[in-house]
């Protein structure tokens, strides 16, 4: 019983990481129609920046520096490379972002080496918390709560601010936004940067839990893509639902039959794609355009 609770909680935390990456993927696809295989690189860069800052300046600064550094990188990437691929075929986008992911991964390997690294949390966060029948590492709980708060803020930004309104309108009809005088290009850059920053922050924050090596970005990206596809490409709540589903599925399978925990998510995705290709909460019109 306790093991089950542990697994459920672990699945939740893992699912939240997936969601945080998937939300960026899905919003970027929704607004820019860009399939971004390099999104995992944002996670990895955030994690390494966080690692360096945490070890030198302190953990608090890491959480500030990581999203900012990743946001800068994202703006640069967008301006230099990705912009010319917005209107290209999805296969071209896949290839170029795959290539960028490769370059980032190898650069990180050169700089930081191939070994898995971690940084320690301050002692205050080292302990465990008792939660009903189980005890659980305090930092993980804090991390989970933090991601939820961040997702809530992101949701509020999208749903409740004027800027978010512009973004949502742009997801449906970029032309009409411009006919009303809206600056869709700027909004797109902002949302791309925001999605990247979120992935970077989560990368920094998740490192004490999962560690970081150069391949981690890609290793988190692929399940996050699964999450997006399962939930429905372009849908915020689809990403949330898909993330929880995939996180729990993976965690519970790990409990029941550990070797299958990696493959079960692919099985899940294959079933969804075969029977409901637009995803659980996706709209069928989106799939035609992708």
């Amino acid at each position: 019983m306790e093991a089950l609770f542990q697994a459920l909680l672990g699945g939740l935390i893992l699912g939240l990481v997936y969601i945080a990456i998937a939300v960026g993927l899905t919003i970027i696809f929704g607004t820019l129609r860009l399939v971004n295989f390099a999104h995992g690189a944002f996670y990895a860069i955030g994690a390494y920046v966080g690692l360096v800052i945490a070890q030198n300046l302190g953990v608090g600064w890491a959480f500030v520096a990581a999203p900012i550094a990743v946001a800068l990188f994202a703006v640069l990437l967008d301006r230099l490379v990705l912009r010319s691929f917005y209107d290209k075929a999805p296969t071209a986008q896949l290839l170029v972002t795959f290539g960028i992911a490769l370059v980032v991964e190898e650069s990180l390997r050169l700089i930081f080496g191939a070994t898995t690294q971690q940084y320690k949390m301050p002692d205050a966060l080292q302990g465990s918390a008792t939660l009903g029948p189980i005890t659980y590492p305090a930092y993980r709980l804090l991390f989970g709560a933090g991601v939820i708060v961040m997702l809530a803020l992101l949701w509020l930004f999208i749903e409740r601010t004027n800027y978010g309104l512009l973004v949502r309108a742009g997801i449906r009809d970029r032309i009409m936004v411009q006919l009303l005088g809206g600056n869709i290009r700027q909004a797109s850059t902002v949302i791309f940067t925001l999605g990247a920053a979120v992935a970077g922050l989560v990368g920094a924050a998740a490192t004490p839990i999962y560690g970081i090596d150069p391949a981690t970005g890609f290793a988190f990206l692929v399940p996050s893509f699964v999450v997006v596809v399962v939930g429905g490409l372009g849908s915020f709540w689809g990403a949330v639902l898909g993330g929880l589903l995939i996180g729990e599925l993976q965690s519970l399978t790990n409990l029941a039959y550990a070797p299958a925990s990696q493959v079960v998510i692919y099985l899940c995705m294959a079933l969804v794609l075969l029977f409901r290709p637009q995803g659980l909460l996706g709209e069928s019109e989106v799939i035609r355009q992708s």
Partner: protein
Amino acid sequence: MMGPSNEAGPAARERGGVLARDLRFAALCAIGIALFPFILHPLGGYSTLATQIAIVSVASIGFNLLLGYAGTLSYGHAMFYGGGGYVAAILILRTMPDHPNVWLAVLGAMLVTMLIALLVGALTVRLYGIYFALLTLAFGQMVYFVVEQAKDWTNGDDGLQALPNAILPIGPWHIDLTAHLPSMNLGVFGDLGELRVWYVFAGIVLLLVLIFFRALTRSQFGEVLDAIRENEQRSTLIGFNAAAYRLAAFTISGALTGLAGALRALYDGSVPIDALSIDRSGSFVIYTVVGGVQTIFGPVAGTAVIMFLENVLSAKTPAWRLIEGLIFVSVIVFLPRGVFGILKRPEKNPRALFARSLRLPTEEPDPLLKPAAEGHRAGPMSIIETFKLGKFFGHFGAVRDVDFRVEPGELRAVIGPNGAGKTTFFNLISGTTAPTTGTIDYKGRDVSRTSGTARVHLGIAKAFQTASLYSDQTVRQNCRLAALARIQGPFALQVFRRSYRLDDVEAIAERAMARLELLEVADTRAGDLSHGDKKRLDIAIALATQPQVLLLDEPVAGMSKDEARKTEALIRKLSTEMTVLIIEHDMEMVMGLSDTITVLHQGTVLATGTPAEIRDNPKVQEAYLGGHSETELAHP
């Protein structure tokens, strides 16, 4: 009469020229493969690398069939590469540990990977872009998992090790592939004796695969695959089953990759679990893209360059993977043409050369162009009839309860204000959209559930509102594709035969071009045509499928007055031989051209009648003028 005898002269000459080119290609490949290890040697490559490159190139060529020619990115090809390796290794270890036979192992591996590809392909080929990539990745991961878990057979994470030396039985000889070639000092180019017999074998396999692949890309099959990649919508509506072609490409691709995997396992004497990994799948993407997709040698060159870097550069700098990644990205960003090869055609096209020697068709009725069925312009049977036909998008009824009947030979116009549902109605008849309610009969047979592709073969063809062409191909080639679909059917696995060997294809295409007065521009790229010529080419393509019912969606839209009148005259001529349905806004043309007019308004039939009847129908005037009668207008 056009008979085979007329064409024998130029055709035979042309075929002779093709044979010479084929031989030259084979000879060049053979020389290149023979020299390769000795070029590699002074660069710092060692002899095993040459063999490995030759083997892995075969997998890259297979991968390129999918990426370059079918146009879809698979991220799971390791399942075939590793799969082939495991099957070959298991076959040898389990069934012939004492007499390892390369033929049996390799054929078994190809068979199994082909079956896997057929199965996985059947589930994936209807998806595109990211969905196809992720689903193939998913299947790749599943195969990895199954293999890793079946420890009794596969040895789990450790992979299979220590395969016995492979023996290649040829007739009475049993060749040990691991034996060295006789020693011969070649100076800076190394020593012949460093090579094993393996290289000769792998080189021959690569040579055969190159020859096969070249033949395939020039065959009918390759031609259709190109067409589907370039314009799938058009391809399905001239009668090609796109999913079947893509599935065939996926299967061949899987089998070639499986062949390479099997050879590699036998060569290495082991197969690691990594052969099934995502990284392995990614490596084929890199090899192929760096070398250049849609080319025969690209994947080979890419494999050679990248594997060379991996093996030689990795000893010198830890940054070799970064260099590899930068090369990959640079190729995509700076040489997009190399990647998405727009510039590959027009080649010196044997088909075109041959075609030019054909005499122009005369005005006599052409026996090849079968006119509308028996009972032309007569008979009680309708050719197209719809009953309560409806199409709903959510709650919006684009077409509602349409009863519509056309007699054979009729020229029927469908008109109506914007948004009346005309194009949706045409899509329902051509089969690009499935009806929500009601049925469509074609010659008394219900075709509402028949695919658009199948309907083309029954005799319903369509020209699009916005001309749907193969922009990178010539006018002639555009028409030939439609004629090819007519002659060979929705799917044919013709991976060796070239379409110019089908005499009728050329004749039908020629005739269709003549009918639309396009012969002068026959060898112009379709994308370079004027707007009017593009619209007429679209009709010519539809015509080359030899339809009995021709659907024309706004055939003169955007044309100048002169062009429009010219096209109108051409359509009038066509209508003497087949049933024509036309959507058009040019009222002058509609009134002058059609036998009968059907007016659609807000998705329903408002009126049907002769042009005069329609002109005087008050309901029609209302629909066009917006709910007010002419009298009200004059006296407000």
